[in-house]
């Protein structure tokens, strides 16, 4: 679009889709009825948008944050008090994260109630469920990072639930997650790496598959 000017002709419009990396997830033409807002409520797209916002704000927040028990809370205070727009970035990241959990869940409901999970889209439904789980995990791992009371005990409650896994695996699971028996320095580093690297990469990969399947199954 910026290289070629506004596409006036249909040919140019078509080319702007299939010669553009970002837009090639879309077909050149779409059904008129499927771009109606109430058809999908744009929930999938909004989820992707939220992921984009979270990546940007998250990367900026990473510049000021050190995942260490002694520094993390102070860094949050610095973000709040001295970093330019630090509080805004943090608010944006936090509220987007909450929004994303809700929007992804709603997206799943929409897909279910419109029956869009049925064959041949069943594999993509599975991808979607995995993405929902990943979204919750992303939100949950990020929840610990401010290292305040809310974070610490919110996460403790969660990992204590993991301890209930039977056959003696519970303690092992929580040990693996926390890098120890309590929520401490190791847990913070683990959650940080999960939150900022491992989970986003996996999510991004699954998102690719998810979008690709949407196209293959004839969606927008």
């Amino acid at each position: 679009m910026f290289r070629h000017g506004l596409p006036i002709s249909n040919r140019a419009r078509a080319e702007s889709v299939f010669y553009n990396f970002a837009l090639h997830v879309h077909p050149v033409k779409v059904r008129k009825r499927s771009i109606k807002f109430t058809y999908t409520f744009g929930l999938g797209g909004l989820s992707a948008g939220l992921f984009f916002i979270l990546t940007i704000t998250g990367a900026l927040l990473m510049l000021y944050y050190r995942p260490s028990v002694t520094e993390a809370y102070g860094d949050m205070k610095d973000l709040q008090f001295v970093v330019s727009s630090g509080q805004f970035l943090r608010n944006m990241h936090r509220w987007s994260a909450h929004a994303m959990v809700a929007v992804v869940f709603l997206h799943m409901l929409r897909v279910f109630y419109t029956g869009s999970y049925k064959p041949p889209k069943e594999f993509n439904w599975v991808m979607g469920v995995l993405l929902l789980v990943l979204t919750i995990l992303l939100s949950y791992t990020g929840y610990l990072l401010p290292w305040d009371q809310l974070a610490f005990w919110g996460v403790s409650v969660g990992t204590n639930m993991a301890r209930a896994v039977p056959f003696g695996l519970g303690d092992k699971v929580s040990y693996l997650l926390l890098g120890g028996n309590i929520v401490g320095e190791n847990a913070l580093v683990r959650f940080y790496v999960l939150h900022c690297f491992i989970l986003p990469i996996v999510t991004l990969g699954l998102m690719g598959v998810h979008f690709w399947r949407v196209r293959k199954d004839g969606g927008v």
Partner: protein
Amino acid sequence: MELDLALGSYLLIEKMNNQRKLFAIVSVIFLVILAIAPFKGFFPEWKKYQQQYNDLVATLPQRVKPTEIGIKQVWIQSLDRVDRCTTCHLGISEPALKNAPQPFRTHPQIHHNVEDLGCTSCHDGQGSATDFKEAHGQSEYWDQPVLPRKYMEASCGKCHKEQDVKQAPILTLGRKLIVEYNCSGCHKIDGFAKQWVPPLDGIGTQVSSAWLFNWLKNPRGYWDHTHMPNFGIADSDANNLVDFLKSFTSLPDGSTLGTLPASLLNPTDAQKAKMLELGATRFGEARCVSCHSVNGKGGYVATDLGKVSSKVSTDWLYHYIQSPKHLLAGVAMPRFRFTDEDLAAVVLYMKNEFVDYDMVQPPEHTPDPEAYQKGLAAFKKYNCSGCHQLGTMNRAEEMAPELSFVGSKRMYSIDFGPSKIEKTLPNYLQAKLMTPHAFSATAKMPTFGFTEQEAQAITVALLANRNENIPEKYVRRSLPKSTFSPQGKFGKLVGDLACLACHQMEGNGRLVATDLSIEASQAHPDWIMNYFKVPYSLRPILTERMPNLFLSDSDRKSLVDYMQVNFIADSLDRAIQMSDSLIAHGKSLYFDRYACQSCHQIEGKGGYVGPPLDKLSTRLKSGWVYHWLKNPKAFKPGTIEPNNNLSDADADAITAFLLKQK
């Protein structure tokens, strides 16, 4: 058909236009939002203050450099602090702003530098914050808001662990009170010693049941300077405790009181009158009121004697004065060398004179058959052993919460109960000290009846007990307590006469009277010998005067001999050639140059501020007078005598003049 098409395309265009409009509107809002989002952090409160500051300094007559707009901070790595207070408090080290309004006012002169300690090390509050509410810690999630001024000295105590912090009188008072009131009897508090309290062995033969009952119910009703708190004991508990305590009749060593002399038991009227006269004389000579008060008048060191005959038994009183430490181990009372006759007279005089005619008789009660068990239970319940020794009973394992780190107590751990006070730690502590039941009716802490000043001082001392990691290089501690304890006969006498209850020797003892460590350099041995016999005060207005202990000649000689060898400093020796010319020179210096007569009496002339200086030569040694004149504060830190920076020659001359006086 054509119309239809036209209409259709019109509608399509209309729809397209709607979408374009929407797109346009949304885009504008989007850009506006993106543009204003950074402003959330762009107009902070502190910028307003910095501009105000620059406006203010522009109006000053002096040249004060305006500040550059931006956040200022002090980073103290060793204390793990980043304090941004100076972002708004811009004038703290600018003397020209002494009278400026806050937040710009100059910081009062202190011995610390903001670059070394930061702000929150002393003031508390949230150093990293940059808006008023958060920085001053008035937010729900910050437990240590800025210390109110009246508790400010608490912060001194975080590093200054000395007993006496000169520039923090409130803190020092608080620490003294914590020791005096034996807080560590119930609470564990690191660094606070326990004060001596009377042991209870033998109390059964000491006090009357009625007195004990009244005392347990309300100690201050008998003596309003007592440190014993009011436990709010119920009558039944009090009765059981009285019965329980009365059963302890034997002394710690298992012995019981001896017999009384016949003269005391059944004196004839004539004998009695004579004895009362003698007793009154000896009571006066012994200067009992130096330490004891009588109905509020007299010394504050020991208990009031005004109603003592309604309290203790004749038997006990006689044997107690005869040998105080035998009956109350550790008591500071000296053993007066009364003859048996004198002693009986003094006791009779006291029994006769110091009666409580208003004593309320406790309500009648039939002794509970299980009084001992119940009394023991009450004894434990109120943790009496926390302060008092009784048999082999141990004090309860810390009954009350530990206070070693109470200054770092987190707000969540404080239960304010129904109380309506503002929820801060200092408020809590002070209210708790003044009314221990303020937060819970079932609280065990007894009522000490602190005044507001006392409660404030103790609060300050408690707030200083933090568990912050303060590097050892900042911490100041008292010098280790002197372990001086004289041996031999002198040592025995010092213990027996409780010299250290008033005098200090080599850093040991309480400083009510003079420090004796260099006494022999100061006074002539003959004078000291005589002084023991007829103690008089250099300042007759003082309450705490040396008592007459009625010492034997051999005792006095032992004391003086020891002092001549040990309490002497060779550096204070200075022989002065008493020539007439020197004396005359000294006289002129005394009257004309330094006008000493404006404070001191000499030859019947002069002021009354200082002690009279006649007859010094019988008492003082020349070296001591000389050195005193050179620097009085070296000997008595609190003296108001000025240091006149005398030359050696002038000091010699004045010394000669003073010691010429017979």
